[in-house]
């Protein structure tokens, strides 16, 4: 373990020393020690289940450690609640966000820290709050109108409001949990600007992410966790991405993307003719053959997700035809497509994928009930067998088949959703951001699974906002811009520059790679 060299006169803002935390069946953290300094971005990486979430929950007071100490400015702290942590100057901004949608930006900024009127104690001092809110946001997001309701803001601006709230409360340490998972490139740039500015003000930032490129771009130091243990803390400029990956998964990732097998069958799985649902997408023609992975590329929000949803019947297209396996079909709802052998892996797993309270087994078998059911009845044994076989195939890690799916990590949940599609014996897989919020190890596993699917003659249509994913995985790439398909590229034709140029159209912005 290398300890970073830092100016001796500067003491860490927060020191975590030998933090230990056990959950039923798992040792989530084992003697993890960490020094966090002001004016420094400290990235925290690791596979899902490595202990990142637990660590930040402990730092932010949401979870109490079983052992070890937290020192702030050399003084031992014991955070019993996030409120206490906040009082000590530690704020956490989670993926899900903690803003109240029905309230305005200003009201959210002061939520729980309202300013009272100097004379009338029971009333809030609206004028003073508005002024302070404005000045706090001016630093990071001048474009936001503080009287807008938060639910009307896009995701990136919501995040900025959360950061603004932390600034207002004079936070000294800010923990960002996967802050870019729902942002597009431009929004990410803006967020990085804000992070740089926070650094300049002496705020310490803990940055949790799966995206290793971001680690390189924004962080000063990086700590890698694996299986609850701290692998190493390094200065970012001293490590390369392959080193990080090796540290995270404990082995070499010799082959990142699986090899393509030649000799695909020319039978069509899906053909779209003039499919339209304005304003999301317009006049789309597209073909997916069996044994072929077709990718949609282009800027996020160019209609790709909506197109996928129309293909699976989640939303009905207004114009155009859909042919599945050679026949024109009428699609009113996912009931139709699932019956025809189409499976959908939604982009927002929590909202559209998992049934949180149900067991992994039930979640997995959900689309396959007509297969394992006998006249509408289900034998638990059949369900268990189905789960057993797919669990094996996908390497799903759950305590047992009756564990509620909400207790699983993101990657494992995603595998269950994928397993649901496989169990339904789908022949066309429609994947929206199949690796979003999934850790590196699981990612490569999912790539392999997708490749296996087409090797077994299924067709795959996927969208990913990570260009390297599209390039590495897909046999054919359709580039979309503002709802229209602007190009169809074969694997040989496609390149990062070409796609970027097509995606941005006449106004090319170089992509930071």
């Amino acid at each position, binding site marked *: 373990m290398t300890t970073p060299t830092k100016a001796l006169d500067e003491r860490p803002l927060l020191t975590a020393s030998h933090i230990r935390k056990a*959950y039923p069946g798992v040792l989530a953290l084992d003697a993890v020690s960490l020094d966090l300094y002001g004016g420094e971005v400290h990235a925290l990486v690791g596979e899902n289940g490595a202990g990142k979430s637990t660590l930040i929950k402990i730092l932010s007071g949401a979870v109490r450690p079983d*052992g070890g100490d937290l020192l702030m400015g050399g003084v031992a702290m014991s955070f019993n609640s996030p409120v206490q942590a906040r009082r000590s100057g530690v704020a956490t901004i989670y993926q899900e966000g903690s803003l109240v949608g029905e309230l305005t930006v200003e009201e959210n900024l002061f939520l729980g820290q309202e300013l009272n009127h100097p004379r009338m104690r029971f009333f809030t001092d609206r004028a003073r709050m508005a002024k302070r809110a404005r000045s706090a946001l001016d630093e990071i997001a001048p474009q936001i109108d503080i009287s807008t309701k938060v639910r009307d803001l896009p995701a990136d601006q919501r995040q900025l409001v959360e950061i603004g709230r932390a600034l207002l409360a004079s936070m000294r340490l800010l923990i960002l949990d996967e802050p870019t998972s729902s942002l597009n490139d431009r929004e990410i740039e803006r967020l990085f600007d804000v992070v740089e500015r926070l650094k300049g003000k002496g705020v310490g930032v803990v940055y949790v992410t799966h995206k290793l490129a971001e680690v390189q771009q924004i962080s000063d130091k990086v700590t890698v966790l694996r299986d609850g243990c701290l692998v190493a803390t390094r200065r970012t400029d001293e490590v390369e991405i392959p080193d990080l990956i090796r540290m995270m998964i404990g082995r070499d990732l010799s082959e990142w993307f699986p090899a393509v097998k030649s000799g695909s069958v020319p039978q069509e799985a899906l053909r779209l003719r003039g499919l339209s649902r304005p304003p999301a997408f317009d006049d789309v023609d597209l073909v997916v053959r069996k044994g072929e992975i077709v990718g949609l590329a282009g800027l996020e929000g160019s209609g790709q997700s909506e197109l996928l949803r129309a293909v699976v019947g989640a939303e009905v297209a207004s114009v155009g035809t859909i042919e599945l396996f050679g026949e024109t079909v009428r699609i009113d709802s996912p009931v139709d497509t699932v019956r025809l052998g189409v499976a959908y892996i*939604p982009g927002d797993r929590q909202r559209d994928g998992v*049934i*949180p309270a149900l067991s992994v087994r039930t979640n997995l078998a959900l689309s396959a009930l007509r297969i394992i*059911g006998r006249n509408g009845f289900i034998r638990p044994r059949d369900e268990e067998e189905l789960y057993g076989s797919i669990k094996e195939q996908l390497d799903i890690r759950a305590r047992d088949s009756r564990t509620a799916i909400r207790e699983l990590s993101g990657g494992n949940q995603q595998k269950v959703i994928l397993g649901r599609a496989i169990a339904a014996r789908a022949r066309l897989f429609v994947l929206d951001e199949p690796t979003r919020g999934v850790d590196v190890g699981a990612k490569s596993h999912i790539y392999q699974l997708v490749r296996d699917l087409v090797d077994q003659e299924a067709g795959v249509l996927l969208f990913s906002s990570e260009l390297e994913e599209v390039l590495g995985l897909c046999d054919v790439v359709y580039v979309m811009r503002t709802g229209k398909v602007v190009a169809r590229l074969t694997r040989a034709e496609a390149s990062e520059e070409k796609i970027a140029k097509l995606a941005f159209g006449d106004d090319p912005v170089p992509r930071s790679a």
Partner: protein
Amino acid sequence: MPQGNESETNQVTEAGREDDGLSKSSKPSSRRLEFTRLSAALLQAGIPLAAVLLCVFFAIQEPRFATLDNGVNVARQFALLAVFAFAQAFPVLGGGFDISIGSQVGLASVVMALATQSWGLAAGLGMSVVAAGGVGVVNGLTISTFGVSPFVVTLGMLSFARGLALYISDGVPIYGFNDNFGFLGEGEIGPLSMPFIIATAVFVIGWIVLNRTTYGRHLYATGGNVEAARLAGIPVRRVKAISYILCGVITGIGAAVLTSRVDSGQPNLGTGLELEALAAVIIGGFALGGGEGRLGNVVWGAIIISILSNGLNLLRVSSYIQLMAIGVVIVTAVVLDGWRKRVRT
């Protein structure tokens, strides 16, 4: 209860790890674990334990509570409530609820009485199920076709079905049955009362539907996350609609028992029953948003309400205070259930 077993094994593995001597704090830790295990076990036992405590309390206060006779008595009273609670469980699992159950009972009672007069008891029983089931069909189709909230639709039905019952009967009870009419409500086979036998049958069938059929899976999934269920290819609208129909059909069975018990077709029968049924379901740990809850726990919910009512009656507690007590129990049950879930994760 599967959860109970699960947490038991969890605790064991955790304790196992402690024994590996991973850290020097293993001793106080394992004591704390004992503590956790105890409180977790207490909470897992939750509802049945509360029922037992209630029984002990009443038996101490009033020895006549703990007689076999009174046991039979409570079993009969419990059975009547349980059937309606089973009915309510279906729409609740699907993420809704049905507050027209009480009115369905009134309507089914009147229809059953008229049908029995014309065509005999079997037809009467059938028509009771048809009447309440018909109400369920209207509820289900309205909710799923127009996407109106279950509260509004069943509130409307609460009024409509009661009005229809009063209209059909001119507001007057319908009398004049031969002796076997009372069999469903008052009859006994061996030591078991007919209501108890019928409730048991409804429970067994309901349990099979929920746990061993495609429909049951679909219902849990729809209530648990309607969008995810839809995208997984589940016909969520139909699933919801059917939950109201099942609710009506079971209510019709219960209404027949109740009608037989009062030996007359009563348009006002079942007033307020919908809330008692809902209370039993909630005490049984069902989430009002849907997707969570086991039918077996509804039994306990109904048992607690019945014991409470019978016990307080025997203690001569005013019925006003009984209403207060039920209110306290409902909220306490939900609070404790919240704790149970948190302790588990």
